[in-house]
């Protein structure tokens, strides 16, 4: 079972529905008890960084996320769900992130429209052999909606070009994160989610 953490923010059904569409037993979970036995965790997130992290904490699901990360359970953070894994965000400097990944979340470059609300091409880091992005074609387009993105670190496996280099996907051991929305990225997004579910077997 893949647990999609439901801490009461926005449209979290999309991730669950996309996984169910792939034939996976995916469930929205609102408590630690419901998440028990999960072979994979998805942490979605839309809206503001501060609102998401506070909702995650008050729901009690922060502990589910932290335990899964500590135990090496396959974990996928999506959009603000990825951003929350960092130490902090410029969007709300006073609020601390989960700090699982080093670095900060930064505002998108100036001179471009914010939010980036569009499809963009994934640019793969040359050295990366990402399990999440395995089997994708050369020009893979995915859907982004965001005004902030993590800064460049060694964990980055794909970027996109939007007024500069913008982080699109990260990977570290059994932790994956996408700044874009795979559940809203058509066939390409479903292929990415399928790669994740293979890690959860």
């Amino acid at each position, binding site marked *: 079972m893949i647990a999609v953490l439901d801490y009461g*923010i*926005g*449209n979290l*059904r*999309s991730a669950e*529905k*996309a996984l*169910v*569409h792939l034939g996976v037993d995916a469930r929205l979970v609102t408590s630690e008890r419901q998440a028990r036995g999960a072979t994979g965790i998805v942490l979605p997130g*839309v*809206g*503001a960084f501060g*609102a998401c992290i506070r909702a995650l904490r008050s729901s009690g699901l922060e502990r589910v996320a932290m335990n899964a990360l500590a135990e090496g359970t396959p974990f996928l953070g999506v959009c603000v769900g990825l951003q929350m894994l960092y130490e902090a965000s410029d969007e709300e400097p006073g609020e601390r992130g989960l700090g699982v990944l080093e670095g900060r979340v930064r505002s998108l470059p100036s001179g*471009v*429209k*914010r*939010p980036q*609300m*569009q*499809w*963009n*091409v994934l640019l793969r880091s040359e050295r990366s052999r990402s399990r999440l992005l395995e089997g994708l074609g050369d*020009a893979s*387009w995915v*859907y982004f*909606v*965001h005004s902030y993105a993590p800064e460049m670190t060694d964990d980055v496996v794909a970027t*996109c*070009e*939007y007024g500069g280099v913008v982080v699109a996907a990260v990977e570290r051991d059994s932790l994956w994160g996408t700044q874009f*929305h795979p*559940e*809203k*990225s*058509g*066939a390409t*997004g*479903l292929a990415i989610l399928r790669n994740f579910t293979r890690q959860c077997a």
Partner: protein
Amino acid sequence: MRAVRVIPCLDVDSGRVVKGVQFGDLRDAGDPVELAHRYDAEGADEVVFLDITASSEGRATMVDVVRRAAEQVFIPLTVGGGVRTLDDAIKLLRAGADKVAVNTAAVQDPLLVSRIAEALGSQCVVVAIDARVSVPRGNEESPEGAAAVRGVNHEQVPGAPPERWEVFTHGGRFPAGIDACEWALRCQELGAGELLVTSMDRDGTKDGFDVALTRAITSTCSVPVVASGGAGELQHLVDVALLGGADAVLAASIFHYEEHSIAEAKRYLASRGVSVRPPNP
């Protein structure tokens, strides 16, 4: 890179897609979920469902349509029409919509935009603006004024006062007495993540988008702008993207009646120098 989105819009009445001509004369054009699925397969970047149902039973149908669509369609889904309260927005997002578009209710209560943005995030709040060329008082009988009212003349006449547009509500029935550019900026300040700007002079005419209106909004606001109303041929999409600065182009009838496929539209845009996500092979 910046890539212009191509968005088919489905007007939904009691669970069926219809296409009107200038907000009237409705024709049946199919099942919304089936059409959305087909557009996704063709490479649509997003789908908009616009609920034009009058009855409250019909509104419940819409939530069901959204729920069914979200099980099969894995591209962004925007739902508008009849969103009056934060609760309406929550219900649609919970059913599987990614964005909600507010129109009349936002004009009547602008803070609704902030309430939705604060509760659910700016990324899911679209303000739909229906605008019509406004003719300065006393000019109704002049050739330019009459042409502007018909939506024929969208070129700026040298020496003429700058063109202005007025916001209309209730599906285009009532003038709101607000300037469209001022309203667009206000919506952005209130937390709108996107603006869907429809020219009512052009809607359903197939004469092309009101490029000047789109340009006026895109040069005033920094959030993405979706241009709507008037698409009749593929060159119109190019014009509003290149000359109007639209971030996305929305069309209904040219796609519904299979005059052009989404794939054709995208290939045409690309051939004219507009970057788009390529259609599915």
